[in-house]
């Protein structure tokens, strides 16, 4: 164990080092550029033994990662925003081919307008791609969840690729003390990089990514669906084993001051720390409010979320993403999770922090106050926080 001062991108680069990742194809993009920079530095210093492949685009980066993973090599890459969007079609190929690639994402807004700051829209837009999705609250989590992502992705019951999201700049470029675990412990946790699935091998030629007719295609998709369902149990096991070896505890869904809370806030990613501070302040005033943090978005932990929120009166879901035409993603999926359940809390959606707009303690207190209003009267189901509605009124007219 070594304590180091690391930016989020560097923490994931060190995750690649201690996990003994063998191949890293990467193309730089803000705010993930520090990942390929740090990895190539570690390789050129002789601190890390891996093949670094500089490519000409993100599409090629993930394509090269597929080739590498198909040989059985432990493979990692990183990207963000437009880069992830450019990978879109290749994401489905990686998951369809069942290759356990791990990708660190610096969660960033999508153009237009051009914006390089924090927002979770990029990964949320890829939620249907068959990848597991983890979200980090801080740089320690960024490193730990990258290791956990490898463990789950490579499990024989799963064999699906995984993304690990961390908010742009708030984590990717901010230094924090990070415990970098010993390679020997990580090897104990992950096992050596070995071939756990059929691989490209000259002595046993195989066809990869074959053409499939309607007679067979659905079975392959159902196969992915089943594997993703299996991953729920595998993730819990991976969290448990992680705690046993490294002493840090993770859950798909974790509560803070939530036991007796009437109103619960749900948060994912770096803004959870700010939310916790707001909850403390409100508790000091005697408000019965609690916080639920989401660390895994795919598979969506619906059983755990329903269990932990079912006794609250109001659940305020905070989304740093928006599906234009409906609502935020966590809200949508939480509401769907309550389908066919008789007793349910009132569920509200609050959109905030898009394009890197600051998320402050006051914003969470505002969310709490608006949620509390809903106890006595009807309120808008989807509300935007800290947005200049008058400016929009001028160009779009009234909503």
């Amino acid at each position: 164990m070594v304590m180091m001062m690391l930016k989020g991108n560097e923490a994931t680069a060190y995750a690649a080092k201690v996990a003994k990742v063998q191949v890293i194809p990467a193309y730089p993009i803000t705010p993930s550029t520090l990942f390929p920079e740090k990895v190539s530095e570690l390789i050129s210093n002789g601190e890390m033994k891996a093949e670094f492949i500089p490519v000409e685009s993100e599409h090629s980066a993930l394509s090269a990662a597929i080739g590498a993973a198909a040989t059985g090599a432990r493979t990692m890459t990183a990207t963000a925003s437009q880069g992830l969007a450019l990978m879109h079609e290749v994401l489905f190929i990686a998951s369809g081919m069942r290759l356990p690639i791990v990708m660190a994402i610096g969660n960033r807004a999508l153009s237009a307008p051009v914006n390089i700051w924090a927002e979770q829209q990029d990964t949320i837009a890829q939620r249907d791609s068959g990848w597991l999705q983890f979200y980090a609250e801080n740089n320690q989590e960024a490193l730990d969840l990258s290791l956990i992502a490898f463990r789950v992705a490579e499990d024989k019951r799963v064999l699906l690729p995984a993304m690990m999201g961390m908010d742009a700049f708030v984590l990717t470029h901010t230094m924090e003390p990070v415990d970098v675990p010993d390679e020997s412990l990580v090897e104990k946790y992950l096992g050596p990089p070995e071939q756990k699935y059929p691989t490209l091998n000259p002595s046993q030629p195989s066809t990869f990514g074959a053409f499939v007719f309607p007679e067979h295609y659905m079975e392959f998709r159902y196969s992915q669906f089943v594997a993703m369902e299996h991953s729920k149990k595998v993730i819990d096991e991976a969290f448990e084993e992680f705690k046993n070896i490294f002493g840090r505890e993770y859950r798909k869904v974790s509560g803070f001051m939530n036991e007796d809370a009437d109103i619960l806030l749900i948060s994912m990613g770096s803004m959870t720390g700010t939310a916790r501070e707001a909850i403390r302040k409100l508790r000091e005033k005697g408000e019965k409010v609690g916080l639920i943090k989401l660390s895994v978005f795919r598979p969506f932990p619906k059983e755990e979320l329903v269990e932990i929120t079912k006794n609250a009166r109001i659940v305020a879901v905070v989304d740093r993403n928006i599906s234009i035409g409906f609502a935020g993603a966590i809200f949508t999926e939480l509401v769907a999770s309550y389908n066919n359940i008789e007793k349910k809390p009132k569920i509200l959606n609050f959109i905030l922090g898009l394009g890197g707009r600051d998320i402050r303690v006051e914003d969470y207190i505002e969310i709490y106050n608006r949620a509390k209003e809903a106890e006595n009267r009807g309120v808008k189901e989807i509300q935007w926080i800290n947005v200049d509605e008058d400016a929009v009124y001028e160009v779009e007219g009234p909503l």
Partner: protein
Amino acid sequence: MKITRGVVITEPGSTALEETGSWRTFKPVIKYEKCIRCMICWNYCPEPAIEKQPGENYPVANPKLVKMEIPVINYRYCKGCGICVNECPTKAIDFVREEK
């Protein structure tokens, strides 16, 4: 049905398992009494679903041809594209609506 994870195929020849004959709307039928055994249809068939077979026991357009091989359509794979019908120099192939 047997599938593998990630569509990995470890044995060669799996395409032959996909019987494309089910795609047919029209079906080519060779009239051997007009067939001069030139094998142009065999050459053009893109599948290939036309096979060469010994021709002694088939009707023949000219007795001199009896020792030559004849084309036989394998309906398990013939998609009914009609190229053979179009290319046959003696119009010896009928194209009839598939009845299933």
